[in-house]
């Protein structure tokens, strides 16, 4: 096995399945449904399946500010990862903090709603203001600066915002910086909170499936929105007992075909997967299994499956998708799906594709319908996003 890459020594997660990687893995093992049915707008009668973090509505109400809710979720995931990594506050001092998110719209939305609803603003300013309140949409980076200060992190603080590949690219950036020796360790956080604005946007593009996500299925109709936060602690590769999981290859490429969809023939997906595999110095036949992006829109699953078929020349390894369990968590999916996948491998299985039932003849390949036993090897993790932003990571287990 290649000795390239960086170790993953701690993972933490908060998702629609609840807090903790263990809870998430149990949901996946049992195939439990963690979705809620919600209405998007008074003008749309149809209700949509959405994967909310449990208790988020009460937590948002209870929180005096939007940041209180957001920070609590992020810190919960970080804490779990730190416990697993046996990391303390000293460990954090020279750590890098790299957050991947599509932009923290919920924070702006909560403020907007609070200010519109109540002149006695809950965020403690602009008292007596009448509506409409001005929108204070701070840039995505302020959350990372705030979290770094709360955690006492003095290393580099970076926010990557490349839509649905944000936290996958955060891992890629961390991997590169650690491998080059710029930093010794990093906490990568993927965080995304559902905003009405984002849901409305996906609906306007007709990309939502009211019935939930059915990756690679003949009857797939689109996305099931999700929210989650995951933390992944990475450090320089050393031969230690923690050396069970490592990120050993990565690639990011931009498909300029269309801002919202990939080349249907799979060429772009093929290119990025091949580049990641080549970085490790392995061949496609060395890949044990694939965690597909599996967004469940007709075009993007066709493109991804096309890329897989091209790369493996008709002999694709087992592949699966996780968005049926936790929804599409946009910028967080890189981190949360990596954490979920590692959690499943740790529990001894490669998860089946929740939501998939019938093969699509146009695709010609089917994802896993039952859990498989996990084994040592190289796993390819795909993340594709708007803006043609495609990222593949290679995870080594064992």
């Amino acid at each position, binding site marked *: 096995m290649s000795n390239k890459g960086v170790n993953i020594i701690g993972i933490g997660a908060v998702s629609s399945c609840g807090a903790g990687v263990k809870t998430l893995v149990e949901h996946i093992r049992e195939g439990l449904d963690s979705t809620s049915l919600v209405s998007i707008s008074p003008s749309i009668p149809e209700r949509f399946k959405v994967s909310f973090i449990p208790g988020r509505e009460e937590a948002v109400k209870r929180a005096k500010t939007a940041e209180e809710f957001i920070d609590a979720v992020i810190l919960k995931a970080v804490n779990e990862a730190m416990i697993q990594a046996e990391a303390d506050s000293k460990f954090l001092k020279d750590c890098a903090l790299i957050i991947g998110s599509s932009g923290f719209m919920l924070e702006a939305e909560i403020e907007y709603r609070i200010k519109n609803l109540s002149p006695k603003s809950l965020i403690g300013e602009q008292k007596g203001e009448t509506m409409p309140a001005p929108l204070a*949409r701070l*840039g995505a980076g302020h959350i990372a*600066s705030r979290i770094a200060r709360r955690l006492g992190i*003095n290393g580099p603080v970076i926010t990557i*915002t490349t839509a649905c590949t944000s936290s996958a690219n955060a891992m890629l*950036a961390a991997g590169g910086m650690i491998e080059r020796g710029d930093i010794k360790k990093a906490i990568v956080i993927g965080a995304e909170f559902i905003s009405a604005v984002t849901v409305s946007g996906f609906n306007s593009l007709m990309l939502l499936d009211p019935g939930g996500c059915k990756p690679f299925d003949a009857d797939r109709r689109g996305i099931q929105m999700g929210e989650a936060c995951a933390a992944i602690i990475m450090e320089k590769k050393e031969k230690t007992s923690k050396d069970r999981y490592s990120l050993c290859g990565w690639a990011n490429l931009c498909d300029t075909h269309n*801002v919202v969809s990939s080349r249907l023939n799979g060429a772009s997906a093929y290119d990025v997967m091949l580049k990641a595999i080549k970085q490790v110095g392995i061949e496609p036949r060395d890949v044990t299994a694939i965690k597909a992006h599996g967004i469940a829109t007709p075009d993007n699953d066709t493109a991804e499956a096309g890329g897989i078929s091209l790369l493996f020349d008709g002999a694709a390894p087992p592949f699966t998708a996780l968005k049926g369990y936790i929804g599409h968590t946009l910028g967080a999916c890189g981190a949360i799906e990596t954490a979920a996948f590692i959690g499943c491998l740790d529990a001894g299985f490669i998860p089946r594709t929740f939501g998939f039932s019938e093969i699509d003849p146009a695709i010609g390949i089917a994802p896993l319908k039952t859990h498989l036993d996990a084994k040592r090897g190289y796993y390819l993790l795909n993340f594709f996003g708007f803006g043609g932003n495609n990222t593949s990571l290679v995870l080594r287990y064992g």
Partner: protein
Amino acid sequence: MDKRKDPVYILSASAVGPNADATAAERRVLKTDPESCDFQDIVRQLTMHDFRRIGHFSEISVTGSQIAIRRMAHPISPNTGIYFSTGLGEVKKTVSMFEQVLGHEEGLVSPYSFVNSVSSTTSFYVAKAARIESRNITVSQEELSFEIALRLAQTDIEDGTVDCALPGGADELSHPRSEHMRRIKLEDRQIMGEGSGWLCLGKNSRNAIGELLMVKEIPAPECLCRGNGDVLSEWLNVAADAISPWITEHEKTYLLPGFRLDKKHIEGLLNRLPQAEIKNYLKYCGCFHTAAAFGIASVFDQPHSEPALYFHVNSNLYGRTMVVGVRAFPAQP
């Protein structure tokens, strides 16, 4: 001195200001907050594409990147990474989207507003216009966004991940000022601005106009001050230590202060670095999170007759500071 493995050369640069100014002759000193210029025709001319549905923010970005690419002496390599940075991203389309969805009518967002507000959209259009399908990363880290993107670009070139890099930064302003101030906190005397700045970087020195010397971070004051030391003086020591090893007798040295750097930090630095002169680029572009990109790229507005050193220094509201050093080469005869 933070000597890197191999030199990273600046092959071209472009800085686009609020009045669509892209050359020294076009620069105008801003007296008040500028209005946004219409870039649609410029984008069409530069790209030969009809990007009519993209927002103003993407237009500024595409314009800057295209000018930088056109100023290169050679065609851009297909293995060029794009390292885009922004503090606030697409402001106007995002605000309009919030009003569509959360306003009195609680309606639905228009697909184009939504797509334009997505964080990877602008770098997609930059890549599409440049016909580049290589690495494409967007960084958003408030006042230090461009510096971080530049550092990622520098290290990716150094380790061979990409042959060349196109790091850039852009932000747009919005009116009224009072509302924009909720997104970027400025003092009353500071003019709000917008624009974009881009550098084409590579390892080959042929036709290079300059060299990227360093991108260095200075930690926040609480990390600098060990014991009972004076925070300002400790900061000045560290900042001057980062810059002074590069200074030579035969090169003029300029300090480019970012918009968060206050008077006492600027004056303190000038005291420590008596050879340095101030170059105030902010008077042309105004204040915005990625003004550093404009400032550093505008160093190359005109060919240099002699080599010169430029050091951009800026901090964020949390007290972190980043220093970027570039050397401008004299123009080749």
